[in-house]
């Protein structure tokens, strides 16, 4: 077992463990902070899998922006910061059963389907910023432009939604 494989296994264990804490912890702010650990270790997995630029984008956007947005949402909805007993639905068992089925089905499928296939990481093309930029602007220009329009639409939609309806009777409360 090489060093790279050991690092990947460690990062995987950290990612799965902190993801379990994200969905089971009774403290909402802790859930957001465990999500940071999960996303950062997934970024480490990306680095191991020779996707350098994706890893840094993951750190910037997910750890930097998305988690901060989630924390903002928790604060703006007046979420209590301490331990809270009623965060989960009462019927946890069916949900756990469905999740176990998903894990078992997907897991056995990929393990059975790709057993013996090796990733040759020594000769993998590292997705550096230069390589990724050249690929996006040579091969994927149209999806890139469509995505920028999508981002603009999401921006406009978010602003419109959070401004509230001007004709609503309780508008003065939201300003």
């Amino acid at each position: 077992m090489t060093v790279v494989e050991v690092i990947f296994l460690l990062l995987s264990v950290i990612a799965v463990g902190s993801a379990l804490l994200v969905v089971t912890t009774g403290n909402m702010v802790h859930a957001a902070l465990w999500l940071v650990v999960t996303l950062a270790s997934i970024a480490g997995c990306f680095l191991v899998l020779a996707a350098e630029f994706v890893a840094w984008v993951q750190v910037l956007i997910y750890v930097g922006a998305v988690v901060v947005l989630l924390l903002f949402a928790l604060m703006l909805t007046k979420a209590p910061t301490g331990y809270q007993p009623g965060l989960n639905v009462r019927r946890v068992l069916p949900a756990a059963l469905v999740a176990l089925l998903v894990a078992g089905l997907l897991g056995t499928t990929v393990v059975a389907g790709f057993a013996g296939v090796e990733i040759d990481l020594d000769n993998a093309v590292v997705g550096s910023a230069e390589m990724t930029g050249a690929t996006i602007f040579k091969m994927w220009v149209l999806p890139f432009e469509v995505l920028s329009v999508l981002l603009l639409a999401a921006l406009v939609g978010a602003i419109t939604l959070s401004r509230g309806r001007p004709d609503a009777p309780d508008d003065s409360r939201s300003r």
Partner: protein
Amino acid sequence: MPLWWPLLLASLLFAIGVYGVLVRRNAVLVLMGVELMLNAVNINLVAFDAHFRDVLHGGQTFALFIIVIAAAEVGLALAIVLMVFRTNGHIEVDQLRSLADRDEADRDDVEVAR
């Protein structure tokens, strides 16, 4: 590295995300489950990119695109969550039943039972 290691990691993270979406009552915590699922898909894409060594680098590019879509999704979703909070005073997804499909007769019973 065997290819099934990252794929198994992605499957486990996806299942954990499914569990989070199903079991959480707070809408923001449901969103965290969705983020876990999106990240699981990204691991798959990056792993196959490293395996196939495609000239187009489709896997890594699609992973980037999914990150962008996730950012747009979370921005919109949080605007909706804030709107729901302003309207209802809470964001417990199992109590937001005004769009639920149910008979007119037991509509009041449900509200009383809560």
